[in-house]
């Protein structure tokens, strides 16, 4: 088993350093998929279905062809001709300028046979609701999880509470939309894709086009975010490849914002009916939940209840429900924010009923030793003791409150391979078929390699984002760092050993005596020999030393704990909630770079605030079209609504590298909801917590 050296001995890891591609990005030199261009390239666009449920009777493209500049058209994009949501791909076009595309899309004459549709979770559950799939009920069979014995658990309980919570659909909304630039090089297909998985896309596309793997290459140098929505091969890529073949020209097809909203995934909504029992001493004895969620025409709307807390007797029944909307895809901590919003409020309700402080109640029911420490650290920093015991006790219409919530995450990551080349002039190149979603992977790779070789970050040239490089998995589930960092360390170790052997021979010492430090290679002990890195590399007999390495045990682990504290201000006249402050504690094992780590926590929290207060997919119930598929009317939290966020990284370097991208987004909405209750004395049980819901809740309380 490998081990990292102790943190005190590290020169780079665990510290703060800027991204190696930061300057490239802020100056606009970094080329994203959106920026890829090739001589003679055409622009592609997809025509999406106008209706949420219809049979495509006929698509007439003759008018499209009559438009000058149109070079390729596809009308057989849809496999069955039976569409189930607005935006579902039915035809496509490629033309010489993007200006032509808008016109071209309007010239398709599509004859639809409209069918009944259903849009909303609770309506789709009714017997009389139109079926999304004719031969299947909209309500899927339950998935049941059972631990212990809930009947007995509730029998032991002295207080039992029941409540219902709802969360909305949230869209991933990466700044760079989904899309590809593709071209054919003979019978080989080169794909620039905005993706979280260059190898996965290569395998997927090869399968979809029935091509051998070696004829498909996928490249992604820089990526404008994905949040889970870019893990899979895209239909748009297949369409682009077909258009490119038809026109015999490169094609760039990036989705416009509307199709991006409709077709590339979302976080499913949820309806959670919860029953929880506890003893007077604060021990939770039983938990029962019946939950529903819609992933549109897809599955995967699970709600990960009871999420964090340790409860001996649990029963959870979940039903996915089909609706006529685009399928869900993984979204930063799938299933968790929904669960956390419900669970953290349930916890607070129970604490109140038992007359316990919410923090004490959690400490009592949280078996994670790390989080036990984190709760105390966070509470101290946040000033939890200043929380008002009586809700809504501020005088005047503007009221403040405090709340908290916990986070958790499971998977580790493994399997990455990498290679390294060291040249006789001292240059170092690392190759790894992972990709950098904006999380900083490129920088982390340079950091690990530099740390191992005793060099500086800028001396390492990192090559990633290409399926020609050694295989690494998809960047999802917070697995990238724990999978990639050990592989890079292993590869660099091997390089060091090889170079060490050469130097040992040169100096006639044992290979163990060779040390790599601060840009020098040193023979420790008696010999007192030393060469600069460059001089040492000059001893290579061939021009280049190439080594291959892979993930190895002992350098990474899984399992994350964390907690968040929120303070809010609620204007009880207008109903507006303002988040004033968030304090987050996150454990992260061995931190690769403090800046990118803090950035992940900040980003997760900002996305959590956005989920709590703003984002919502809205449909026109008459037509089934989404009415806000754009950045003006689909509200995403802005900088002015983003509060002060304090991130406390709880180092546990002995655990090795752990991924932490997802957990920080989990507890934010629940912590805010609890703070709102503390401020105004009523609970908002559905997301987003908009001003009118706040006023309605206050009015209901009065009535």
């Amino acid at each position, binding site marked *: 088993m490998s081990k990292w050296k102790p943190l005190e001995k590290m020169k780079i890891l665990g510290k703060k350093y800027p991204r190696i591609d930061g300057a490239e990005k802020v100056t606009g030199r970094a080329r994203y998929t959106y920026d890829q261009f090739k001589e003679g390239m055409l622009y592609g666009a997809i025509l999406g279905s106008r209706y949420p449920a219809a049979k495509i009777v006929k698509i007439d493209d003759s008018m499209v062809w009559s438009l000058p500049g149109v070079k390729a058209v596809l009308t057989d994009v849809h496999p069955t001709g039976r569409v189930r949501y607005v935006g579902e791909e039915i035809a496509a076009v490629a033309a010489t300028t993007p200006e032509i595309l808008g016109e071209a899309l309007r010239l398709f004459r599509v004859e639809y046979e409209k069918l009944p549709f259903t849009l909303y979770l609770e309506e789709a559950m009714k017997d009389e609701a139109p079926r999304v799939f004719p031969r299947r009920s909209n309500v899927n069979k339950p998935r049941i999880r059972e631990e212990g014995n809930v009947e007995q658990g509730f029998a032991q309980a002295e207080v039992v509470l029941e409540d219902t919570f709802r969360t909305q659909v949230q869209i991933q909304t990466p700044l760079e939309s989904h899309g590809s630039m593709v071209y054919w090089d003979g019978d080989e297909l080169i794909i620039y894709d905005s993706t979280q998985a260059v190898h996965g896309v290569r395998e997927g596309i090869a399968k979809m086009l029935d091509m051998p793997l070696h004829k498909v290459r996928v490249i992604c140098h820089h990526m404008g975010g994905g949040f889970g929505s870019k893990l899979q091969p895209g239909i748009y890529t297949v369409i682009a490849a077909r258009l490119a073949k038809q026109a015999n020209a490169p094609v760039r097809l990036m989705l416009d914002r509307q199709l991006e909203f409709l077709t590339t995934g979302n976080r499913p909504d949820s309806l959670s009916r919860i029953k929880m029992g506890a003893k007077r001493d604060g021990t939770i004895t039983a938990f029962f939940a019946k939950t529903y969620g819609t992933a549109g025409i897809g599955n995967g709307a699970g709600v990960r209840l009871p999420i964090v807390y340790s409860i001996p007797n649990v029963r959870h029944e979940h039903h996915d429900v089909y609706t006529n909307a685009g399928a869900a895809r993984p979204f930063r901590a799938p299933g968790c924010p929904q669960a956390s919003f419900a669970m953290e409020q349930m916890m607070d309700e129970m604490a109140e009923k038992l007359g316990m402080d919410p923090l004490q109640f959690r400490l009592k029911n949280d078996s994670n030793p790390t989080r036990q420490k984190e709760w105390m650290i966070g509470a101290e920093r946040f000033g939890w003791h200043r929380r008002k015991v009586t809700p809504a006790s501020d005088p005047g219409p503007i009221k403040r409150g405090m709340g908290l919530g916990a986070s958790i995450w499971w998977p580790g990551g493994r399997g990455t391979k990498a290679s390294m080349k060291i040249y006789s002039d001292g240059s170092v190149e690392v190759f790894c078929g992972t990709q950098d979603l904006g999380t900083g992977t490129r920088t982390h790779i340079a950091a690990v390699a530099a740390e191992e070789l005793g060099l500086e970050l800028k001396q390492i040239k990192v090559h990633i984002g290409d399926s020609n490089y050694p295989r690494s998995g998809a960047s999802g589930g917070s697995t990238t760092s724990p999978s990639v960092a050990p592989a890079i360390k292993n590869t660099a170790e091997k390089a060091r050993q090889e170079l060490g052997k050469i130097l040992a021979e040169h100096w006639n010492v044992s290979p163990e005596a060779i040390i790599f430090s601060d840009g020098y290679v040193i023979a420790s002990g008696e010999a007192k020999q030393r060469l600069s890195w460059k001089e040492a590399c000059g001893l290579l007999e061939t021009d280049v030393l190439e080594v291959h390495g892979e993930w190895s045990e002992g350098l990474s682990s899984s399992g994350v704990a964390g907690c968040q504290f929120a303070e809010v201000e609620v204007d009880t006249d207008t109903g507006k909630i303002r988040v004033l402050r968030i304090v987050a504690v996150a454990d992260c094992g061995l931190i690769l770079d403090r800046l990118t780590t803090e950035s992940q926590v900040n980003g997760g929290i900002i996305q959590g605030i956005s989920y709590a207060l703003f984002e919502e997919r809205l449909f026109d119930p008459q037509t089934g079209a989404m009415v806000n598929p754009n950045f003006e009317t689909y509200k995403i939290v802005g900088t002015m609504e983003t509060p002060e966020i304090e991130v406390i990284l709880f180092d546990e370097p002995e655990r090795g590298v752990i991924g932490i991208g997802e957990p920080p987004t989990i507890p934010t909405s629940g912590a805010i909801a609890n703070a709102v209750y503390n401020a105004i004395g009523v609970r908002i049980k559905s997301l987003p917590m908009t*001003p009118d819901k706040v006023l309605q809740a206050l009015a209901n309380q009065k009535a």
Partner: protein
Amino acid sequence: MKPPPFDYFAPQTLEEVLQLLEQYGDDAKVLAGGQSLIPTMNFRLAQPAVLIDLNGIRELADIQESDEEITVGAMTRQRMLEKSVIIREKTPLIFETIPHIAHVQIRNRGTVGGNLAHADPASELPAVMVTLNATFKLQSLKSERWVSASDFFQGMYMTALQPEEILTEVRIPVQAVTGLYGFEEVARRHGDYALAGVSVLVHLDENQNCEDVRITYFSVGEAPVPAHNAVQFLTGQPLEDEIISEAAELAANNDIDPHDDIHASAKYRRHLAKILTIRALQKAKNRNKPN
């Protein structure tokens, strides 16, 4: 999305602009800051065959003052208003309003004329212009006329402008030093169009009773909405808490006609109008500090 093809003119004089408008009329649109027009063209909600760019007409972009009024050229950027000492000192109501319009980046391009001519019912400036009793100069090749702000705004995105006319100048009476004012709005996020908002301007007589009251709402109707009932009620009364609340209630129930949309329900807008009226009038009242 990209707009459909159009012809583009970049005239250098007002005369040329007016000639082009005379020639193309309904087929043409003038381009000011482009912050509203270009998005609507990209979404193909507007498809003008001809675009006449006003950005070359220097004389339309300045702010001048005389004793009684301030003159603002139509091509004055919103950001220039925000930074103008004249505006800050002579019409503090406008000064307080500007930061609520979009974001700095948009205000750098967006113009006063474009904002008013666009006549978005959720826009702040139109309501403020009505409150301040501003008048607008509308020019065509053949005519020139002055229209009061309250006559200019006729409905959602509808104004008194004829196809061959443009707005060239806005005249705003200088706010009397004794004028008490207030501006309030609620938007979901900073820079968003308001869910509801109000601007008020009040003059008190020597007995501290309201003698000239102006209250104008935005985002609660098709155009800026004056609060006739509330104004009538307030006139002759002192600005006291109970009276303010009653006036606000009256305005919210009788003066405005908000509707539901995806951002807020009509009911919520009515409620906001009441709250914001109280807050704006309280603000106005609190300025009435003897120096």
